[in-house]
């Protein structure tokens, strides 16, 4: 329930653009963003949400993981070709955001992470995207599905 309320509050804040005003109130946060869709509009909006989230909490206060599986790998496939998406992802990475990729999906869809995904190394790969999200929540991460 905390997580659901968190999501509601978070969206309310990002809509109002009041993030900066509340920055000092949030303390430390651990957050997992769940990405499993491939439409460009949702993915761009998700990157926007993540940036707003960091702005609101402060990059030094947040441990942010973006976990992609299934169609969600499209995020890094697009970033590989589309300069605008690439800038956004690179910018988030510079602020400490981790982009984690599901090994099951790489195998199932025969995706080569070295050539098909933007700036992805072996360290970014998790055995199962869904299990990773479940694990992160058990470690105190909040869940956000943009």
């Amino acid at each position, binding site marked *: 329930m905390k997580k*659901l309320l968190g999501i509601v509050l978070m969206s309310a804040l990002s809509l109002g653009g009041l993030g900066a005003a509340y920055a000092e109130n949030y303390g430390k946060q651990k957050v997992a963003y769940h990405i*499993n869709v491939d439409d460009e509009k949702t993915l761009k909006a998700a990157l926007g949400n993540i940036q707003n989230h960091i702005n609101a909490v402060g990059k030094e206060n947040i441990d942010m993981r973006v976990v992609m599986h299934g169609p969600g790998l499209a995020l890094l496939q697009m970033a590989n070709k589309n300069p605008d998406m690439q800038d956004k992802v690179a910018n988030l990475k510079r602020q400490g955001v981790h982009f984690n990729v599901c090994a099951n999906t790489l195998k199932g869809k025969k995706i080569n992470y070295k050539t098909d995904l933007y700036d992805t190394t072996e360290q970014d790969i998790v055995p*199962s995207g*869904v*299990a990773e999200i479940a694990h992160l929540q058990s470690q105190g991460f909040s869940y956000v599905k943009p």
Partner: protein
Amino acid sequence: MNKEQQFSEEFINAFVDDELTPDEKAQAYARLGDDVLLNHQVCELRKVRDLVALAYRNVPAPACGTSAIAAAGRKCSTAIAAGLALVIGGLGGWFLNQASHAPDNAVVAQVAPVAEDPAKVLFHVSEGSPEHLKSVLDEVENLMKFYRQTNQKARVEVITNGGGLSLLMAGISPYAERIQRMQKEYSDLTFVACQNTIERIQQELGLQAKLLPGVVVIDSGVAQIMRRQNQGWAYIQV
């Protein structure tokens, strides 16, 4: 607390649990009069609290509409009892001593999962297109396989409401056989249907919603999601 501010979650919880000072309580009551969202939050929290109390109470199933919840509770107790047997074997007299003080299942329910530490995952399904439902089942099955391959204990619940209920409706679900096979293959996997949605279908469409065998019915999908999160389950929206 500033009256213009939103009440914090802790504050609302404390209100529901009757832990506020009289002044704070008066503040809350004053706001409840004109704040629909707050009203809704309080109502949901009360419902969750009452349902948790009901599920944990060690009583036989009442012969009313809540029997499904009690059934879910019993299923849970069986799993807990099995887990407890292992724990007792492992920890011997110390645990027996602790357990003998247990007034009812509530204490057992808190102890067993810590010792066993299974992964607890709920999938929330609220959309019902066949392609979507297929990807849901793929993801659930991949996760079950992953836990099996890595020798991790896990309990997984697939909670359906709204359009997602079509996954579990007999004569409508495109994947009835697959679900039956998955139920057989993974004993820790439960498919759950929302009673509110079933009633809504009956009212709005005049359809008597029949469910696939083995599906557990709970009062409200949303309340179940909150209950599970309170119990430490991970939430995954698919």
